[in-house]
């Protein structure tokens, strides 16, 4: 079998557009997921039982549903409910944010609970309010400790964005599949796609390792 990689070269613009969508979706879903996840984590740790239960219910629900179902849901069902189409990009983005938030909530909650109680007591003793203690003492430490886990989750998210083909979005993987089938270069294009995913994810996970060692040294 002779491999001809010129097909990849000739279709770089399409593949590049796909990669752009993958990266933009990852970045937006990551930011939204962390933001919503942080709010959910604070709710989950609330002393008010119903509030904590609500957040726990949210997390457990989303962690029990496959991502692809959440994507379908927002693409097909939500437009039926609100009476107008959401558009594939926003449907996917909302689905990813809501889905990732459940995972980030758990990561952030564990991070907050990992900060010794004595830190809180010491900060409270200087006259800070609960909110100030959270903002200046607990959260900065918690975020630093959980950055490696968050980055790992971001890598998973990046790979998961390839699922958006079900809502007719052209991400990197979908673009590759289209090129592969159209130009009958399945082997070449899929090898290339695998290499690209590997390069990005491997670099990112090395970054996680580097960050981890830094966090551990500064403790």
């Amino acid at each position, binding site marked *: 079998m002779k491999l001809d990689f010129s097909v990849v070269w000739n279709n770089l613009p399409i593949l590049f557009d796909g990669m752009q969508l993958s990266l933009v979706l990852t970045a937006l879903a990551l930011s939204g997921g962390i933001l919503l996840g942080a709010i959910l984590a604070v709710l989950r740790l609330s002393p008010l039982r119903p509030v904590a239960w609500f957040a726990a219910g949210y997390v457990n629900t989303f962690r029990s549903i496959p991502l692809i179902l959440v994507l379908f849901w927002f693409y097909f069902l939500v437009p039926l409910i609100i009476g107008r189409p959401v558009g594939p990009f926003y449907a996917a983005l909302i689905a990813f944010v809501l889905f990732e938030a459940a995972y980030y909530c758990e990561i952030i909650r564990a991070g907050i609970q990992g900060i010794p109680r004595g830190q809180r007591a010491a900060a409270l003793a*200087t006259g800070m309010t609960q909110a100030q203690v959270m903002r200046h003492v607990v959260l900065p430490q918690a975020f630093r400790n959980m950055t490696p886990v968050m980055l790992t989750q971001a890598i998973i998210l990046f790979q998961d964005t390839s699922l958006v083909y079900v809502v007719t979005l052209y991400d990197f993987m979908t673009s590759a599949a289209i090129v592969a089938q159209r130009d009958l270069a399945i082997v070449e294009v899929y090898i290339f796609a695998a290499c690209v995913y590997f390069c990005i994810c491997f670099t990112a996970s090395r970054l996680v390792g580097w960050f981890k060692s830094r966090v551990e040294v500064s403790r």
Partner: protein
Amino acid sequence: MIAVQQVSKWYGDTRVLNGCSTTIAKGEVVVVCGPSGSGKSTLIKCINGLEPFQQGRILVDNISVGDRATNLPKLRARVGMVFQDFQLYPHKTVLDNITLAPIQVAKRDKTEAEVAAMKLLTRVDLEEHARKYPAQLSGGQQQRVAIARALAMNPIAMLFDEPTSALDPEMITEVLDVMIKLAEDGMTMIVVTHEMGFARRVAHRVVFMDMGEIVEDRPTTDFFEGAVSERATRFLSKILQH
């Protein structure tokens, strides 16, 4: 300045404080001692509201700590506290550890807060470590930073919860020296400690606790030389033996 009136506290069914009463006047240094589990740490944590209590009253500068209407952060800002395990913020430099509350709570200007912090660091003999992180300091140095951090809010009184218990023996002196200086400057202090040498030297009064009760509360010389209760005598003989 600080009045503890018939304070009792329970953890579930376990009574950890039992009708504790004492008063601390302005400028007074009081050492609280007693066997472990006697409630001494719990008692001083009740004074700045870090621990709730179910019965009795605590007044700090005539403000009732246990009162629901009391603004606890405001009250705590005026009472410094030093912990057994230092509890410096590991993600902040020594200087930032000290200036955090003055900037965030007292809303002081950053430069002004830093100038004041440097003065405090000079006072605890650590000015050259201002830019370091807590992990780069020894236990004794960390505890002195913690004292500086508590002093940065210009407290009307200082609470010390076993400040030297977590330290290696060779570092205890440097921390006690800072505390002695503070006492000599007229700071109102409540110190939970087993350092009886410190008690003898600077304390005006010694409070002895056992099983959640204040058993002895008398002037220092009286406590060490006068007739004391059997429980206190037993405790003293145990810790002074060596």
